């Protein structure tokens, strides 16, 4: 493990923590605009997090240690996962870091704990949230893996670092493949970050909530961790999409200027993407839960299409 890599760890983690709340607020802002409202400040999420950190934590008497460790584990797992997606700087991969399956599994680890925490207090909403979350994540899994397989197929590597390096140095593969990968990854982002039409992050209306249902019991600093980890996860996934499709700006050498440029470019690219997500969300209604499989089937179709196109061309 060289110093570059250690620096990478530090930079990536700090960057992702620093910028991700911004994008959460940005989406809200975009949605507010499309609805003709002014919306909260783009820094609202930061304020919320700080407020939450100052509050006390309340545990239900029924809850066990799962409830207590979940925020930490979730945060840790997602931060490590975020390390797998270089935001501004692509180092040489060390010890299998950047393995795309491991990335996916780390997200699954966080989800596993969250779902258990949802069940822990015994409230029916938490249970409902967990149940739906696990169901959705299960049926999106084939799509995700096929998209990843397609990526591996296109880039001839399993490692996200290498993929980025290839896309930076040699440019991306054919346009059609890119579009398809883009669409598939986009759907995955929507699902993984619990956005409309899969989930509605805004409401606490009982019948529609999934992700929010799971973390209903969380409070204070724990809630802050959960919120932050959700934001980090979104950022990491967005970065994965962006750095594959529009890789320009990301640096492979460790220079201050390069990193600063990359950071600015990242924020710009992500802001555009959040804009797209916001508009997408606003133009959609939340789907009924049991209509989701058909949405996923569509995603699966796209991802399989990539494979088929790649295989037969």
């Amino acid at each position, binding site marked *: 493990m060289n110093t570059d890599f250690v620096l990478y760890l530090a930079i990536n983690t700090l960057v992702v923590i620093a910028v991700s709340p911004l994008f959460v607020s940005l989406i809200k802002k975009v949605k507010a605009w499309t609805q003709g409202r002014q919306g909260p400040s783009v820094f609202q999420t930061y304020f919320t997090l700080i407020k939450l950190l100052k509050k006390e934590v309340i545990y239900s008497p*029924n809850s066990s240690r799962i409830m207590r460790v979940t925020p930490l584990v979730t945060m840790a*797992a997602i931060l*490590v996962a975020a390390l797998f997606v270089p935001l501004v700087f692509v180092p040489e991969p*060390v010890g299998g870091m950047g393995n795309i399956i491991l990335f996916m599994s780390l997200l699954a680890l966080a989800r596993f704990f969250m779902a258990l925490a949802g069940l822990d207090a015994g409230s029916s909403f938490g249970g409902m949230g*967990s149940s739906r979350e696990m169901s959705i*994540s299960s049926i999106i*899994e084939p799509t995700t893996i096929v998209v990843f397989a397609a990526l591996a197929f296109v880039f001839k590597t399993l490692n996200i670092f290498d993929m980025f390096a290839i896309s930076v140095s040699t440019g991306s593969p054919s346009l059609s493949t890119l579009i398809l990968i883009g669409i598939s990854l986009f759907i995955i982002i929507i699902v993984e970050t619990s956005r409309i039409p899969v989930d509605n992050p805004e409401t606490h209306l009982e019948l529609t909530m999934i992700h929010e249902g799971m973390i209903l019991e969380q409070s204070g600093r724990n809630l802050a*961790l959960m919120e932050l980890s959700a934001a980090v996860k979104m950022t990491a996934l967005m970065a994965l999409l962006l750095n594959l499709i529009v890789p320009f700006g990301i640096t492979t050498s460790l220079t201050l200027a390069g990193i600063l440029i990359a950071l600015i470019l990242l924020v710009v690219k992500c802001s555009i993407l959040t804009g797209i997500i916001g508009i997408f969300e606003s133009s959609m209604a939340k789907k009924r*839960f049991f209509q989701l499989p058909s949405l996923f089937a569509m995603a699966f179709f796209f991802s399989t299409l990539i494979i088929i196109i790649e295989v037969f061309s």
Partner: protein
Amino acid sequence: MIAELFILALLVLLAGTIFPLIAASLDRRSVRTISLSCTIVASILLGILSLVNLLSGDSVSFTLYQPIPAFSLSFVIDRLASFFLLIIAVVSACVALYFTEYIEHMDGESRRNLLCSCTSLFILAMVLVIASANTLAFFLFWELMAASSFLLVTYEYTHDETRKAGTFYFIMTQLSSLFVLLGIILLYTQTGSFAISPVYGGMTYLAILAFLALFAGFSIKAGIIPFHKWLPYAHPASPTPISALMSGVMLKIAVYGLVRFLLDVFTPDLWWGVLILAAGTASAVLGIIYALKEHDVKGMLAYSSIENIGIIFTGIGLSVIFTASNLPGLATLSLLGALFHSLNHAMFKSLLFLTAGSVVSATHTRDIEHMGGLAHRMPVTSALFFVGAVSIAALPPLNGFASELLIFMSFFSSVALVDPLFKVLLFICLALFALTSALSSACFVKAFGSIFLALPRSPESAVAEEVPRAMLIGPGILAAACILLGVCALQIFAFVGFAVPLPDMLLISLLLVSMAVLTYAVLYFTASREVRVSETWGCGTLSQQASAEYSGHGFSEPLDIIFSAIYRTRTTSERTFHDQKNCIFKEGTGEIRLLKVFEEYLYRPIAQQSMSITKSVSRFQNGCLDTYLLYVFVTIIALIIFLGWFA
């Protein structure tokens, strides 16, 4: 040295078998403890010898006994055998340790001595199967294994459920033996010897038939769908440690058989691989889908075993495909994945069975709907179960993930395969495989959540108590193994001498831990440290009730509906009305029953068919002398005609 150790271990196991038989009528704890201690000692010996042999990579062969020229009791302990011996050794040591305490809580007075004896015999048989150097010895011990495990399954023979399980198990086990026997005979016909050595002269139809027969035999024993039905019956019915042994080890013996014959005897074709892969994938997906629906904790674990065996078979299938496509590197990778998953499955499945057994003995029910809240009452057990659940859900950094990752990697590497159609097939299997691992994580969220979290849903669960120490140490060792095998996977492979493209899980784990520590530290210094334990918001309900909780059933409901095409349900309802035009509803009953597809469309029709055939055959024996004499008469006439025209 290896041979001597091996024989010593056999003798110790034999002592463990015979001693309780001698003291059969003595209902003493000491008898059972001595017998189980023998098992533990033998397991340790086996563990040592297999580790030594695994590392050195030698192939030790020796003949114990040769009564007739055609048949010798000879053994070979090579790397593959040592690997499986290691599985047996670890699992059986832990199980036996657990058993020493568990058995004292069981019914059956002095019958328990026999149970100990049979357990020892069972382990002995498995060890011998693994070490057998020729097919005849292999089959002989295979049968011994079948017989002893049958006796173990039917231990609580007075229950209806056990009777059914026993019947299923007996039939399927016999069927498996039949196929293995057929395979061995066909092999002998082809090669003229019992040696487990390559078949020369190409894959003739005899060799292909032999492979198919062996594959069927091993599939039945391993519980590959559609031969899986015995598993979800036998596992719940047998005593828990036995389920742990059967699921953790016995299924692996079938895997061993398949691997051994594929590697050492046959030169497989591509379609063999496809066959194995298809069987594996189908079992994996269907197994976990059925597991989700199961509310009997041991039944659920049984279905999950089917899933995991499916995963192992997937790995083997891939390996065969790669071998046939002349890609030895990838073949090794996927085979390593399959073998590593066998080891891991043995660890976490035994762990889960043992802890589930503790839970069952504490709550006196196997229905997870009647558990709940046990995390408070059985903290250690719940922690151990949790480790198992994380492992089996294939989450990093534990061992289940490591082995599934290997198989995933070999799937991803199928890029190197030539035939495009084949790639598509592999990608479909990959998608299903991913579905499997995601569903298994849902399944174990449900299991852990329903068993250990929230409020107790039955009075027994509310007063459950932590189990004695021996019942914690055994699973504890397994849990430690799960963690170790996961975290240090790369290092272990390197140590044994395989370079696998696994990520460094040690690094990842360190990162995870340090991230958690950092987060904690940051929070500690920045955030409020106030903590209050109090009633939380319940969406308007005043106080929480166990009956209002999300049950296991409710948890899997969304998936039920999504996979309703696979869960065939039958809805029946009866309604009565007050008026004649059926407008005013009076009362009614309704039932939604889950159809057991394989049982109702495959097993039962076959059973009914064969029963009706036997009925008509028994009519032959009608008890009337005249009829019998008529048979004789007709036969003699027929024979005379035969004489006249065919002599």
